[in-house]
């Protein structure tokens, strides 16, 4: 059944809402199995409460002989199974009288799985295939009638025929039969796994003596699979041929719903056919492997001493050795020599960052300052502050402090101070303060 993701989400949400869980103990499973077997043997449709208790007692006696308070446990078990919809009350009388109970479809499916009865065999496959072919033949005839009604211009009759004689049987009868084969295929898969475990168990129990039994198991399983595969191939081919005829009729009559139904059955039949081939192939590999094992390992080591001796060897019981191998180096296929274009690295051109020294006439700073002081005095400056201001205005700020000293020196040389005792400190250009003198220009003589 192909389920779209949104549909799957809806289904899962439904399971959550319904709190769907299954919790079964071994005793529960045993009880369900006992009910199933009793019902089948005695052709019983349901069990009364007394009958249920009897069955439970019997199951307890076998599975848990030491169990006490069996009636109480039986009551709990019935309640648990009813909660999980494995046991259903079928009489509908409620509290008026004691009830009649039957196994639900879910319980039957669980027990059938446990009993592994649904294994694909030649008989079951032949029977199912024959029924399937019969049903598909009926569907084909129904499809022919529906197509004829369509051609005769009776759309309502045709629609009824498509629904009742094609879509319905394809979904229910044919679908059930095909699902039955698929279920039996899964049963056979389980049986094969069991065979493989059985072969291991046989060898572990009786190493050399198990060879014949193992070979017999292998042969019988191989024969079964081969036979089933042949039957599947033959029957599925015949079925697919019929189904394709039906598909053509549905396509010609534009009966899309019927066409979808028949395509789904075709897919199922295809998968059944593919299963046969895949299992045959897988079993063939396993068959060869086991045969080789029996021949190379078991027959050549009847006392099964090799494993023990190898284990001792591995544990360091003997001299260390190493296997010799051929060790030719890999062939070296030289590549064609290709002239690779020389691409230089990306870089800046080298440049001489050092500048050549250039001779500059710096002049004698004292002479410069002296000339400027001379100029200031000539222009009428009469105090040291005034002279300093004028000279410092012509130099860079960082040089003013030094220049102020030089101005004082030059002023003392070029002029004479005429100042009272207390000289004033005066702010001059360049945030400097100097002790001010009053100056008088000296004559050349003086």
């Amino acid at each position: 059944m192909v389920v779209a993701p949104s549909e799957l989400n809806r289904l899962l949400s439904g399971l959550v809402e319904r709190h769907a869980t299954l919790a079964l103990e071994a005793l529960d499973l045993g009880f369900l199995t006992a009910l199933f077997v009793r019902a089948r043997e005695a052709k019983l449709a349901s069990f009364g409460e007394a009958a249920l208790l009897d069955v439970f007692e019997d199951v307890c006696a076998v599975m848990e002989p030491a169990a006490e308070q069996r009636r109480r446990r039986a009551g709990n078990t019935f309640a648990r199974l009813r909660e999980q919809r494995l046991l259903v009350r079928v009489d509908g009388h409620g509290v008026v009288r004691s009830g009649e109970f039957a196994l639900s479809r879910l319980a039957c499916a669980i027990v059938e799985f446990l009993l592994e009865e649904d294994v694909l065999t030649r008989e079951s496959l032949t029977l199912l295939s024959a029924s399937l072919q019969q049903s598909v033949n009926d569907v084909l005839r129904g499809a022919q009638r529906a197509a004829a009604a369509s051609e005769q211009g009776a759309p309502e009759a045709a629609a009824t025929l498509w629904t009742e004689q094609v879509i319905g049987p394809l979904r229910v009868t044919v679908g059930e039969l095909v699902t039955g084969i698929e279920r039996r295929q899964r049963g056979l898969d389980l049986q094969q796994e069991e065979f493989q475990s059985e072969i291991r168990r046989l060898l572990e129990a009786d190493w050399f003596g198990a060879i014949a039994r193992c070979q017999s198991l292998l042969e019988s399983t191989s024969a079964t699979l081969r036979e089933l595969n042949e039957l599947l191939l033959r029957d599925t081919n015949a079925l697919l041929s019929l189904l394709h005829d039906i598909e053509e009729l549905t396509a010609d009559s534009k009966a899309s719903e019927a066409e979808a139904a028949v395509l789904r059955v075709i897919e199922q039949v295809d998968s059944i056919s593919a299963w046969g081939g895949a299992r045959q192939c897988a079993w063939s590999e396993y068959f060869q492997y086991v045969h080789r094992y029996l021949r190379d390992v078991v027959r050549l080591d009847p006392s099964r001493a090799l494993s023990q001796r190898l284990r001792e060897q591995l544990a360091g019981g003997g001299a260390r050795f190493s296997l010799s191998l051929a060790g030719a180096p890999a062939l070296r296929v030289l590549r064609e020599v290709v002239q690779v274009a020389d691409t230089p690295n990306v870089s800046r051109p080298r440049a001489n960052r050092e500048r050549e020294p250039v001779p500059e006439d710096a002049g004698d700073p004292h002479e410069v300052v002296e000339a400027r002081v001379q100029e200031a005095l000539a222009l009428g400056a009469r105090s040291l502050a005034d002279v300093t201001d004028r000279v410092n205005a012509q130099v860079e700020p960082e040089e003013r402090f030094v220049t102020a000293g030089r101005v004082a020196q030059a002023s003392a040389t070029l002029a004479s101070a005429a100042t009272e005792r207390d000289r004033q400190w005066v702010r001059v250009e360049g945030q400097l303060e100097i002790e001010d003198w009053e100056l008088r220009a000296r004559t050349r003589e003086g």
Partner: protein
Amino acid sequence: MTKTFDQLQDVIEDAEFPVLDLALRRGFHVDRDSAAWYVLLSEGQDLLECFYRRYGCELIHKTDGYFYLLPTGEQLPRRQLSAQDMLVGQALALLYLDPMSLERGGIITREQVIEQLVAALGTAALMAAFLPKRRRKDEQVAQRQTRAKVGEAVRRLAALGFAELLANEQLRLRPALLRFAEPVRGLAEPAAALAQLVAQGEVALMDDELATGTQLDADGPTGEDETEDEAVFEADGGERDTDEAQP
């Protein structure tokens, strides 16, 4: 699938031959699972035995159902499996003999290989064998490194045809693994059987240094960083080879 070869030229002209020849020369073991190669070797066995003898090596066909090339002269380089590969190979051979692996058609997991090694050697000896110069005290790190080393050994053995790597950390055991059991296979004493195998050139005895795996650590101070190349060493001291041969 049967081929008939009248002369060597027919074998050599077979489409499968070049790849098969290269694989054999690199130490690959060919069994029935490599169906095309096995048929070619089986059908042309007589012709190929003469062919390879001229290169100073023998084309060996074991009754267990596999072929391999064994150098007997100097023309074709010979190499020995490392101590670690020998340990893993013997563990795989034990698993091959175990009916448990038979249940799954010879398919096992890497975990089973390590379990087998632990069962045979014990955890401490196993780690000492795979990490001979271990200095770190961290047990978890050492265990992880040991598992990695075992995995590398499995991969190398698979490249030689002793196993087939499958998905999900699984591997399929192949009959050539029985080579690891040769010294204890017959009725003779293991020492005598081993001496005979040494005389045939099938195996070489390892000295203590090789047996403890220290030869692998000559390149590194701790022995924890060697690559797979270091595990396969060549007897002639030549180049190391990691090429994998696959059918």
